[in-house]
């Protein structure tokens, strides 16, 4: 199999990730509950994972990292904690349902930053979207469809100038390109994509300590006779048993990234995506979506004229053993923008574990299919 579905999950991981999960499942007690060796080993591993994430994003205090089961859970918790029906919120048409659906559910008034023909956000429109009750912006750092990297610096500067809280969805970027804690007020991330951790891991990074409304509550290990739990990060988001097995795997994934260096990983992924783009850009029947003139994520979505994306993905799999992802990628608005709702797109997403030979086989398969 050639695995080109890394934007969905990183199937090929450093071997120490699985080894760490195996070790943890045989040795870890319940982190933060009781204080004998097995529970302390577990608690210390969770803390060490906080330290590794803090180190990756340049955060001094590891307790400003809370762990969740996924970026989706992180976004749900943050949005439900902070956003009220009376708030107006700005998001983008490039965002994923993990952002859009919690926002719809919140009952807030939503305004959308649109994008151009290459999927780049129309940042000139920001001022027109501002309402007296606009208090938040929730936006992705990078699109899971186009692979474009959003200009977060401009977005955050604009948010700060207008006293808006920026919640950044870094599901596609953390571990692939540089993500720093000071890029937004709150960053939601997943562990199982570019951070190379197991599925069922993710988290929330807060730039500064703040109070969150409790929207998920239960056993927290402390103050058991109080009716309400601590409202500060990380405790406010971490009731219930931690996925310490998964987090121990995530620790090894993040340590791998720290050892390799984000710049080196990014350079390798950029080389692979550029090779793929150069190999298919001249195919008449193929339409590419996104901006290929500037730095991007290793994600390429495309259509072949007249072909349902499901048929294309099936052909890639059955005839070439190439794993891709067809359809809407849980990002409905960007598909509406590109008018691909009916056809869908096929997404090729690479990781630094892919090889040039695999890229070339992907190019060759597309050439044959589209001829």
């Amino acid at each position, binding site marked *: 199999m050639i695995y080109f579905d890394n934007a969905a999950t990183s199937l090929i991981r450093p071997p120490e990730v699985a080894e760490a999960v195996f070790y943890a499942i045989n040795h870890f007690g319940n982190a933060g509950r*009781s*204080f004998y060796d097995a529970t302390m080993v577990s608690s210390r591993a969770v*803390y060490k994972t906080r330290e590794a994430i803090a180190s990756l994003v340049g955060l001094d205090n590891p307790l400003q990292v809370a762990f969740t089961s996924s970026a989706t859970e992180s976004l749900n918790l943050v949005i439900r904690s902070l956003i009220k029906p009376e708030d107006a919120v700005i998001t983008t048409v490039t965002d994923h349902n993990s952002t859009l659906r919690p926002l719809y559910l919140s009952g807030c008034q939503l305004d959308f930053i649109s994008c151009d023909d290459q999927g780049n956000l129309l940042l000139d429109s920001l001022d027109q979207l501002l309402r007296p009750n606009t208090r938040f912006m929730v936006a992705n750092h990078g699109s899971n469809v186009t692979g474009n990297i959003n200009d977060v610096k401009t977005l955050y500067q604009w948010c700060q100038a207008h006293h808006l809280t920026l919640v950044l969805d870094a599901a596609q970027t953390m571990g692939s390109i540089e993500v720093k804690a000071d890029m937004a007020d709150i960053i939601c991330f997943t562990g199982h994509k570019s951070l190379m951790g197991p599925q069922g891991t993710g988290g929330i990074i807060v730039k500064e300590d703040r109070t969150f409304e409790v929207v998920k509550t239960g056993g927290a290990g402390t103050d058991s006779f109080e009716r309400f739990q601590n409202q500060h990060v990380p405790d406010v988001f971490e009731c219930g048993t931690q996925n310490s097995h998964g987090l121990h795997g995530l620790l090894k994934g993040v340590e791998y990234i720290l050892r390799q260096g984000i710049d080196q990983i990014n350079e390798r992924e950029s080389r692979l995506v550029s090779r793929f783009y150069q190999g298919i850009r001249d195919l008449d029947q193929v339409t590419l979506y996104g901006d290929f003139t500037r730095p991007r994520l290793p994600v390429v979505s495309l259509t072949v004229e007249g072909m349902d994306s499901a048929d294309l993905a099936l052909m890639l799999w059955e005839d070439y053993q190439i794993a891709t992802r067809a359809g809407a990628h849980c990002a409905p608005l960007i598909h509406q923008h590109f008018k691909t709702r009916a056809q869908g797109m096929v997404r090729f997403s690479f990781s630094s574990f892919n090889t040039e030979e695999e890229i070339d086989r992907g190019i060759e398969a597309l050439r044959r299919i589209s001829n």
Partner: protein
Amino acid sequence: MEYIITFESTSQAVQTERLLTDKGFKVRVMPLPSQINVGCGGCFRLEEQDLEGALRVLSDHQIGGIQVFQKTIVNKRTNYRLYPVNTQEEIEKDEE
């Protein structure tokens, strides 16, 4: 004499254990005694000679919300008495 340090949360306790062990302190972790706060939290046991240094490390790292209790055993019964802790300002004043 033995002392107990309590924390606002278990995650803070684990962070503090890391800070203190990195500085060479012998930290023993135990369940929070019921007479201090009935719950399922944890706390640290420290010997008297380590208390001042440990508190200084916590102060240096701005670990807030801790409480210190002095452990005494009278007639085989353990008691925990709240022990006043110097603030960062008081420590700095003492140093002057």
